[in-house]
């Protein structure tokens, strides 16, 4: 996580920095609206490069936010991704906290 990301909400510990990164937020938002999706589907939806998506996937998986399942379909490898319960909850909390954060801002 970059220091720039950490500095965005210095006084708000409720904002989950893992979810907050734009690329990871996009991955989680796309996984939130489906039950599961494969790597190609998420790559097309987020427009991330393969390397970039793989790197962010690893961070989310390490955090326990997504579940990564490898399988073969017609002898072609397929990586299936899905949000875990923890990931779904983290995404909902992030949404709520961001709404609260912006709701607190003066006009």
């Amino acid at each position, binding site marked *: 996580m970059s220091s720039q990301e950490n500095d965005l909400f210095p006084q708000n510990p409720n904002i989950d920095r893992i979810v907050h990164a*734009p*690329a990871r*937020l*996009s991955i989680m*938002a*796309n996984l*939130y*609206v*489906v*039950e*599961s*999706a*494969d*790597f*190609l*589907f*998420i*790559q*097309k*939806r*987020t*427009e*991330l490069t*393969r*390397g970039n*998506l*793989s790197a962010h*996937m690893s961070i989310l998986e390490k955090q326990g936010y997504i579940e990564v399942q490898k399988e073969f*379909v017609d002898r*072609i*490898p*397929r*990586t*299936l991704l899905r949000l875990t319960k923890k990931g779904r909850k983290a995404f909902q909390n992030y949404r709520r906290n961001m709404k609260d954060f912006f709701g607190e801002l003066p006009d």
Partner: protein
Amino acid sequence: MDKSFDLQETGRQAHRAIDQDGLLELYLGLTLLSFALFLIDSLFLKTDLFFIWPIFLFILLPISRRYFTYPRVGYASFSPAKKKLLLVLLLIFNLVFLVLGIYVALTFDPGKRIPILDLIFGNFSIIIGLIIAVVFLYKGRQSGITRFYLYAFISVASGILNATISRADFPDTLGDTMIGYSVVVGIILLASGANTFIRFLRKNPLPHRNLRDCK
């Protein structure tokens, strides 16, 4: 990268990615045309050779998506809650037919006309037209694809038109109202689906098999 974090729109885009292939309408068109053939056969030819119409939607659609759509745009499975809703709707639909069937069986008298059956058979294309329109409206709302709304309108309009024409010529016959409906809507859906599918294949070339999965 995708800048939109409107979750509803994200959901719509996910559905649109799969439904943009045109295969649903292509196979629904083939289903309706083969259903028309089945009705013509059971009314006039009686060869019993055309009971093939369910295979298009229920067998060939998932197989085609596996070979044409998912390798190009990726695979996604959607919320089990929505699948449950569809199953509940199907169950209600079947229950209505079951209740009607029991009613007809209990009150059947060969010499007597059954008003409710006359009403249903005489307007069957309207009933089917409405059911197919509801499916398209649901898909349209789910994916934001506007052509689904047009199909819904065509389905209802064709249902009403065919029921009206058939009533004038051959009242109270299930086959007569449905053949016209199935042929008209089937040809429109098949042509539109084939056109959409060809455009989908051109717009989404098959990526190399090594580029479809993570590094």
